[in-house]
């Protein structure tokens, strides 16, 4: 299925991934992703009927008590914002509607 990867497929994936690719990137990635997916096709030959999936290699995650503990101060939490808001403790974003 991967050998049929098209520029339109790449555009669809880029939209899902929130990446505004250039025309050159779309061409390049179409070829490179098809190569990688073709290589991954070899997995289809492995018999995995009845084989469970491994998402991680540990048993149950370790839990901790749901207890209060110190957190970052607000000015530290927003200190790396690329566009600090004029009011303290906020992030500024471009308009969402329109």
């Amino acid at each position, binding site marked *: 299925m991967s050998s049929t990867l098209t520029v339109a497929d790449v555009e669809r994936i880029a939209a899902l991934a929130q990446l505004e690719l250039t025309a050159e990137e779309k061409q390049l990635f179409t070829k490179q992703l098809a190569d990688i997916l073709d290589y991954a096709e070899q*997995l289809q030959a492995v018999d995995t009927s009845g084989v469970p999936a491994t998402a991680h290699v540990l048993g149950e995650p370790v839990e901790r008590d749901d207890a209060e503990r110190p957190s970052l101060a607000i000015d530290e939490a927003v200190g790396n914002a690329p566009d600090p808001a004029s009011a303290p403790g906020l992030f500024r974003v471009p308009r969402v509607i329109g």
Partner: protein
Amino acid sequence: MLQSTASAIREDVASGRVSAVEVCRAFLDRTTAVNAALNAFNLVTSERALAQAAEIDRRRAAGQTLGVLAGVPVAIKDNLCVRGMTTTASSRILEHFVPPYDATVVARLAAADAVVIGKTNCDEFAMGSSNENSAFGPVRNPWAQDRTPGGSSGGSAAAVAARCAPLALGSDTGGSIRQPAGFCGVVGLKPTYGRVSRYGLLAFASSLDQIGPFTHTVRDAALALSAIAGADPSDATASREAVPDFAASLTGDIKGLRIGVPRAFVADGVDAGVRAAFDAAIGTLRGSGAQLVDIELPHARYAIPVYYLVATAEASSNLARYDGVRYGYRSARDKDQNLKQMYSRTRDEGFGAEVKRRIMLGTYVLSAGYYDAYYLKAQQVRTLVRQDYQQAFEKVDVIAMPTSPIPPFRLGERTGDPLQMYLADVFTVSANLAGLPAISVPCGFSEGHLPVGLQLTGRMFDEATLLRAADAYERETDWHAQAPAI
């Protein structure tokens, strides 16, 4: 002093034979002298390091007990957060990011009185096998400056090899500690998944990422692991397994230890010089009393496609957080752009090509219609890769392979073809898929005096046996003591 191990420096500082400030100054001077050629560091924090060293000396003078890494200069891969120290993951998107907190491993090194001297260059977000994906330029191999130091922790490996620091931390998702350690002729340890907290590591693939040390000796790696390992309330995947004093397991005795060699798996595509060094290395282990046992890892040849589907899927999710809102770079292409345009332009402009390629691949394999065929299939084959190891470890205690099938290649040689670059990870990725601890130790040189690494893999949470085998090998050889002529 520059040739000293971390263990020796700690003893000298604790006994007062040398001051922590003298040690710190010597390694900082060395770093300044060679970094223009190597580009191993994104940031050198001289003032902060000297102040910390002075504080250690003051505490010693006051009769206080010093930590197990007192005065040891340490270089930190630039994907690990250090409070107040710019942490970029070698990406434009985090070029000016200053973490407001320490990674757990950084806090534990500080508690052991190690002295951070700077942040090391790496592939962007640890995605790469050559360090050529850094936004700040490639690191050069101290043994041959036209060649790669390996990746993604290339700066950490080069820093230790070039004697800028006796200890560095890296992260290993598919070989990113072991392969550069092999390429640079130093020791590199990837602990068992869950052995070391990942809190404060900028996540790449959360089910595979693990932090570990680069050192000159196995003993130093054991010392560093004991210092950074153990449960952490900030990481639900950090195991509560007891952390032994790993250095105490280095008895030098491997008589009767069963070392598995997957002969069929390592038969093809291995450089002649690497092959010769590997064969000699397992001969040395046998000479020390180990028993070599032929084993099969029938699914290991699928580890590369499994890895690149699983790791990119996880990466596409983890890197969704870089959106130009809360931290990092924001596109300013158009002041009237809306929110979605800002996201997608920020990400296109802020990420490098390999990171975008992996986000795209991961998004694709997780998308509707392809999930079962790629992602789920890869997770099932991951189970088979794990089971191969479980069966092998019923017969053997440790498994030996070359770290990399090839010696360090020339910068630029493989950048045009991502798939060819991925194939170089053939011997390292399966330990991550199975969660197993693995170490690379220097085992000789191939043609052109290029370092070769021997990789040993152990059972889950059995770093003690793994380190004992590696240390026993090291005792019979002097590869680890050789230094590049930079």
